[in-house]
């Protein structure tokens, strides 16, 4: 009778809705610091910066609205599709999620209101402060969400209550978990990288179109500088430290990410290759000897456990984890190259503004940080399987007992249709705003 088990249908729906939703927080968290900077420069009398701020605020607002609309189903799904999980762990994860809503989301929406509509009503200083608080709200919002996820990756600060429920023992321990801090810094670096590449890419578009030249150069400059710094920070220290936490607390995920099946002393780092969980081997590998041991433990001869060291029922989906990880790392390397090259051409007598091929490269790069961000989250979440809370609760135990897989698939199809319309609308509004350009005063 069943063609798919309920938890799998719930996972598919959650994966689709969260991946679609996350596109918009990337935009808001990535653009907010730039907007704060431009608004502050504008308040100091820099008219061009004020236009830049107004332009990016308009695009931010579209992202924010789409983020809110697609965020509601996320909040609902914990209850609708993952009722057993919510009932068992709600005493813990309800806390950071409520704080996200109460502190961060309200902060962000309130001051976005002032930023959008209050320009003539409040002083320039207050206006600049609102921009800063919008950024603070967006980044704080990210922290509470990542802290929730980090607890599911590495649960701390909890105790067992009645009926096997998990209750909060120490809220501060949950919020200040080292796992959360490094994961957060890595996530925010990724979002800022995407925002920077978006700004550089839009600037490149104006230069290539021979319009809005002065402000276009400013976009390219700001985007390239911040983007290159973030591309480096994404690898070191944030990616490296995040990886160290995975090595320490989730060794099976590490083995799946690297496609390492056999426990090896002096483990090699696979650059290419196709893992096969069925054959329990990495096919056609291209690797650098000893590098994985060195990266994971700081010692080229260190022992790294392979997947074979663990029961297969504890394996995450190996291929998906491996490919997502390699897409993220591969793109990250490319971002450093593109950023570094652009930075070089910028410093070298501002040649970047006249190098059409490099501007084209920047323009075409816009979507790829988004892909890298999504791939990174795929590693984190798929690699956590088969656990919904690592070591405490399995994903299959978390699904709603009253909802069938058919119901979930039906609503998944509904979301596909609704999000197609929403995505089209988002692209239309964003592209129109970019087409109108920063010269047009916003409503």
């Amino acid at each position, binding site marked *: 009778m069943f063609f798919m088990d309920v938890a799998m249908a719930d996972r598919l729906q959650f994966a689709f809705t969260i991946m679609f939703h996350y596109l918009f927080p990337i935009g808001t968290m990535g653009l907010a610091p730039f907007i704060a900077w431009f608004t502050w420069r504008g308040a100091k009398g820099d008219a061009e910066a004020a236009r830049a701020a107004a332009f990016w605020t308009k695009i931010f607002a579209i992202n924010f*609205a789409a983020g*809110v*609309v697609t*965020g*509601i*189903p996320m*909040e*609902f799904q*914990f*209850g*609708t*599709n993952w*009722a*057993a999980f*919510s*009932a068992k762990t*709600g*005493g*813990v994860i*309800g*806390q950071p*999620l*409520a*704080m*996200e*809503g*109460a*502190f961060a*989301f*309200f*902060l962000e*929406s*309130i001051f976005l*209101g*002032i930023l959008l*509509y*209050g320009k003539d009503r409040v002083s320039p200083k207050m206006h600049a402060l609102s921009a800063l608080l919008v950024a603070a709200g967006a980044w704080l919002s990210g922290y509470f969400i990542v802290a929730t996820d980090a607890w599911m990756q590495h649960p701390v600060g909890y105790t067992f*209550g009645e009926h096997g429920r998990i*209750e*909060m*023992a120490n*809220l501060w321990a949950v919020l200040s978990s080292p796992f959360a801090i490094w994961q957060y810094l890595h996530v925010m670096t990724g979002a800022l990288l995407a925002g920077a590449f978006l700004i550089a890419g839009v600037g490149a578009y104006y230069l290539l179109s021979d319009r809005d030249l002065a402000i276009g150069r400013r976009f390219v400059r700001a985007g390239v500088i911040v983007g290159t710094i973030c591309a480096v920070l994404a690898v070191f220290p944030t990616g490296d430290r995040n990886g160290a936490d995975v090595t320490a607390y989730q060794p099976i995920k590490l083995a799946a990410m690297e496609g390492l099946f056999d426990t090896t002393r002096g483990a090699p780092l696979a650059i290419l290759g196709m893992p096969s969980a069925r054959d329990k081997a990495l096919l056609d590998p291209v690797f650098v000897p000893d590098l994985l041991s060195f990266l994971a433990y700081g010692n080229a001869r260190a022992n790294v456990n392979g997947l074979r060291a663990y029961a297969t029922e504890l394996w995450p989906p190996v291929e998906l984890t491996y490919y997502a990880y390699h897409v993220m790392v591969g793109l990250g390397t490319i971002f450093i190259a593109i950023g570094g090259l652009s930075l070089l051409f910028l410093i070298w007598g501002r040649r970047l503004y006249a190098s059409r091929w490099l501007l084209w490269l920047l323009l075409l790069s816009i979507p790829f940080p988004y892909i890298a961000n999504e791939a990174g989250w795929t590693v984190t979440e798929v690699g956590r399987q088969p656990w919904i809370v690592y070591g405490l609760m399995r994903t299959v135990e978390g699904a*709603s*007992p*009253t*909802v069938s897989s058919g*119901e979930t698939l039906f*609503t998944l199809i*509904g979301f596909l249709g*609704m999000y197609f*319309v*929403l995505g089209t*609308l988002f692209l*239309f*509004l964003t592209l129109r705003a970019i087409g109108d350009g920063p010269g047009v005063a916003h409503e």
Partner: protein
Amino acid sequence: MNSAAFVVLAFMLGAYVLLDGFDLGIAAIAPLIGRTDGEREAAMRAIGPFWSGNEVWLIAAGGALFALFPRAYASSFSGFYLPFMIVLWLLMFRGIAMELRGQLPTKVWRDFWDFAFTASSALLILLFGVALGNLIRGVPLDVDGYFVGSFGFLLNPYALLVGLTAVAVLALHGATFALMRIDGTPAGRAQALLPTLVAISLLGVLACTVSSLAIRWDDPPALWTVGLPVIALVALALVVRFARAGRGREAFLASSGLIVAIFGAAAATLYPMLLPGFHGSPGIGIFDAAPSPVALASAIGAVIVGVLAVCIYGTVVLLPRFREKVSVRLNP
């Protein structure tokens, strides 16, 4: 403390009904108060600065329910899976309708989105009303607190009565808002419509009060709650009076009082349950559903801080905008 959590939650939901109530309500009567393209566009512009902020109360209340009463959150959201999904889609569809309407100037395009706007809003009110009706009537739950009935069970005559009453009351609330915030013909039509809406609401409120008492005969609400239907009747009378005088702001305040009274009566009837059982099946109350006291206290604190911040923002930034009138454009 558990009662405080209940009050906080009821406050948030009440704020949602009061605020999103007027923009859902004006949408439900948009074809009645706006006959031309420009008039209907004015009705949408009247709620333009508010509706998304109003919906934030629903999101916030959902988040608060999760933090304050995780067990009630889990069993209600999963138990009423399809109705919840339908509500989600209608909320999205309604926003899309408002956003897309103005993008093309053709008549068929705008007529379609106007219809979508009105139909999705009216259906949302009906569903919320049906949900409230079922909460008061009770739903069959198994020992783990999961809903074991069907969709058909939820569509019982009593819940439908509450749903239809909700449509009438919020349509009335929307009409007083239109009278307050729109200039010209739409306001006149809202004024003309109000006596009918008041009459239907009056019948609905009376029928709901009587049948609620009949349903909850074994477990009646506290005696003081008798005052709430009385306040509702006074508020209805005031709406009529102010509407006749064309005083939009006072009429809107009166219909706000009506909604607070009705919602307050519903919440007081429900207390101390969150999800009462049906005919002896176990229900979920404010003590079964809460997390550890430490977690509950910190959740209450967080939610109150958030609610206060929004209330301050609402009074300082949004309230002045209520007074600005929206006029009908010739070529929107």
